[in-house]
């Protein structure tokens, strides 16, 4: 058996790579967890695409403000130094390359850095994209946080995505429960493997050659 770290450990691993001063958007779902592991005492500016920089944690009991929510429509707070802005200004920030890091979930990431995370392409499903395509191209570094394999054991790091794409060549790094991989011009490169995992084991799980 290979070593797998927990979702919480993975969130902490991602958080450890985010430097002070970074402007960061944490996608809906698992990436939201990263906020809980950002180093105490460091100032990191969280962006939420529904119109705010300097987002703080969830409010105390009884202090929920329905006008102050994040992209997942959960109640949040504003830190000192926060700013509000409208939707066109908010997405201009992302599209214009002013965010340092986006952390996103994924169905699949390709060796060329393509991301598929918005649709399984199932016929009859109601499609919904939200800000996924904007986030995919919306930061200097786009980090993906995901399991290496689906629940059914299929690789999520692939030679080419079979699910509908969210963005082309946009992912810079993939944090998985087995290890961390950079996307390079030559494909995935192992950055770190957790526990006793070996290069060969991961290559055979994925059926992909990995750069060292």
């Amino acid at each position: 058996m290979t070593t797998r770290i927990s979702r919480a450990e993975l969130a902490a691993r991602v958080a450890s790579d985010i430097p002070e001063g970074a402007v960061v958007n944490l996608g809906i779902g698992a990436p939201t967890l990263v906020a809980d592991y950002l180093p105490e005492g460091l100032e990191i500016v969280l962006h939420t695409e529904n119109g705010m920089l300097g987002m703080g944690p969830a409010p105390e009991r009884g202090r929920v403000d329905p006008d102050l929510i994040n992209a997942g429509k959960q109640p949040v707070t504003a830190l000192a130094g926060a700013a509000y802005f409208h939707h066109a200004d908010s997405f201009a920030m992302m599209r214009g390359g002013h965010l340092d890091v986006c952390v996103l979930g994924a169905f699949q990431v390709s060796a060329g850095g393509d991301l598929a995370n918005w649709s399984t392409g199932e016929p009859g499903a109601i499609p919904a994209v939200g800000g996924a395509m904007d986030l995919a191209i919306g930061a200097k570094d786009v980090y993906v946080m995901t399991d290496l394999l689906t629940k059914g054991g299929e690789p999520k790091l692939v030679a080419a995505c079979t699910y509908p794409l969210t963005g082309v060549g946009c992912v810079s790094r993939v944090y998985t429960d087995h290890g961390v991989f950079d996307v390079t011009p030559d494909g995935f490169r192992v950055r770190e493997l957790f526990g006793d995992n070996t290069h060969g084991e991961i290559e055979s799980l994925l059926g992909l050659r990995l750069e060292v």
Partner: protein
Amino acid sequence: MIDKTVPDVAAAVAGIRDGATVMIGGFGRAGQPVELIDALIAQGARDLTVVNNNAGNGDTGLAALLAAGQVRKMICSFPRQSDSWVFDGLYRDGKVELELVPQGNLAERIRAAGAGIGGFFTPTGVGTHLAEGKETRRIDGRDYVLEYPIRADVSLISARAADRWGNLVYRETARNFGPIMAAAAETTVVQVDEIVPLGWLDPEVVVTPGLYVDRVVAVGERPWLRDGEFIGGVDIEGRPLADEDAS
């Protein structure tokens, strides 16, 4: 004297025609002009194309408008949510069309309509299903897709306060689509907590200048505010908490 205030929500939505394109502000429930939507349901215009980020939550607001059968088509980025059962049912029954637009392209297309831009090249969506059939171009080494403005006959939005010229200020993330939708419609209708005397809004902090606004109606303060100050004591849907929860 310029006075864009109207006495009630019925007057605010008067004249919206069948077949109109109606932009509705809000991101989920935040900033959603629920009282104006209720008035639109009472007014009864049908066959509407509605532009909103989502496609309704629960059974109120935009969801109620959909349930009333008044919407022919939704233009939005994220219809499917945990509480979007009204839209989901109509869509599966083939009773409402959907144009899905990435959220940032939606915002920029609305902004373009207000700003007189005929089209723009955006990197969002390039190489995806949502750019299929659209013109693409490589500019300075990056690929872009050409997107066009989305205009509306009417925008219904919500703001915190207005003066009689229609100058608006918003509150927190309830600002979201309000300013750009105000500029993108032929007629812009705004519900506010309160109408303040002309000159009370500092010209430095006006977010939507009055020239974008046609009608303003005061609907009273939200339950989590008193005299404009946050007092808390509601759940995320804005319902006052039972006393034991609010402690």
